[in-house]
């Protein structure tokens, strides 16, 4: 079969001075699949997502991204390949305006002015943020923050996306819009792992469903 994009090999993780949250977990995620990760609260989904993106480093086992052991990769390097949406979108918003939040990473990477402008206005349109483009991001509502955070992740064109409960705080219409956008990305060949409880959302998009319980995978259905 094809190479996995992210591979976890016998990974164990415990938070500082706490009991282990994830014990000896192995998993292969493919770019060609849309993977949904479900499970009750506290089953370790967020922790798993953070391990996959290198925010948390496992005490045992290794995480292989694109065939390279991620232990030797800096967070910035991983971030160029994988886009990650925090469960709490407030944590990843830091610029003084909505527009700048989306554009600043492009500017630092040396994109041209025209390119930035077109990508930003496209992204504002996709996420229905155009009339908020000069707003102060900290004052946005939960759902607006969520959309902004997703827009800011997607504008960097990552190869693989890990989204932690992306539909939380979105109304029905916005959920639909988001799943349309994700379907479009899937067709473009971008790999995705989405943590979600939203049945409708998952059923529409997922090729593979992983169910977690107590830090272990209890079900893996393709």
């Amino acid at each position, binding site marked *: 079969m094809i190479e996995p994009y992210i591979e976890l090999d016998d990974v164990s993780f415990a938070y500082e001075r706490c009991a282990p949250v994830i014990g000896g977990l192995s998993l292969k995620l493919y770019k060609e699949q849309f993977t949904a990760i479900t499970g009750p609260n506290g089953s370790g989904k967020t922790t798993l997502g953070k391990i996959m993106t290198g925010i948390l480093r496992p005490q045992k086992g290794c995480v292989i991204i694109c065939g390279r052991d991620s232990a030797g990769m800096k967070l910035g390097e991983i971030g160029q390949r994988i886009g990650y949406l925090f469960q709490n979108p407030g*944590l990843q918003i830091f610029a003084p305006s909505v527009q700048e939040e989306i554009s600043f990473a492009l500017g630092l990477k040396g994109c041209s002015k025209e390119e930035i402008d077109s990508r930003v206005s496209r992204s504002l349109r996709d996420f229905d943020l155009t009339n908020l483009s000069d707003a102060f991001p900290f004052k946005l509502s939960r759902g607006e923050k969520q959309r902004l955070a997703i827009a800011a992740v997607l504008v960097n064109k990552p190869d693989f996306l890990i989204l932690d409960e992306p539909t939380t705080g979105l109304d029905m219409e916005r959920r639909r819009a988001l799943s349309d956008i994700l379907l479009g990305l899937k067709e473009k060949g971008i790999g995705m792992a989405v943590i979600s409880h939203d049945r409708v959302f998952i059923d529409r998009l997922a090729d593979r469903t992983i169910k977690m319980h107590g830090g272990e995978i209890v079900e893996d259905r393709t």
Partner: protein
Amino acid sequence: MKTGLKGLDPRSKLVLVLCLSTLGVFIQDIGILTAVLCVSIALSTASGSRLFVLIRKFRRILWLFVAIAVIQSIFAPSGRVLVSLGGIKLITAGGLYKGVAMVLRMSIVMVSATIMATSNSREIVQGLVQWKVPYEIAFMVSVAIRFLPLLTDEIKNVVTAVQLRGIELDRIPARQRVKVYSYLIMPVVSGAVIKSRELATTMETRAFRAYPKRTSYMVLTMQRIDYTVIITSLITSILTLILYIKC
């Protein structure tokens, strides 16, 4: 039962910390400042603070201290010129001396503050209240202490989030760097403002200040060691200051 400095009453710790930081602020002499810093470190460790863990955690921003020393020395030049650039006196002997003193002073204040952090915030409020400090003020102090670790968490989050956008922090061109640092401060400040507003509303809804007098479940009592610590630290620091001013 805790023994020695570990079981000190929060009020004795407060006096100790105030004495140490007062010395740190008033004294200019590098030799004495170093001595005060050593004493602070010794007392902080003895009182059971996690000083070295903290230093290890903050080792990344230690360069900031060096930067402060250099900036100090640029803006307050005096004495022999050590390094100059195109006629501008960059580092001078007098400026460097002031810079080092500044760094020592900041270290003393921070190290002695870790002594305070070994009491939980509830104890500190109670200590202040029993000293007849109005409860509102005591409560504000405790909130400040309580929220500090959250602020450092927040900075860590933003650093992570910035990197996850595919930006390698050590490869940012110097011109852009300031902007990225401003990003780190922004959410922390506005987060703090928002949180404090929410806290104020919550307190109102729970009828904070509805009654003028409050009864405390917890009552602190001073032990002999507390009086010893208070008296010793007051006398030692006053003597040090007098000697310092006279000589």
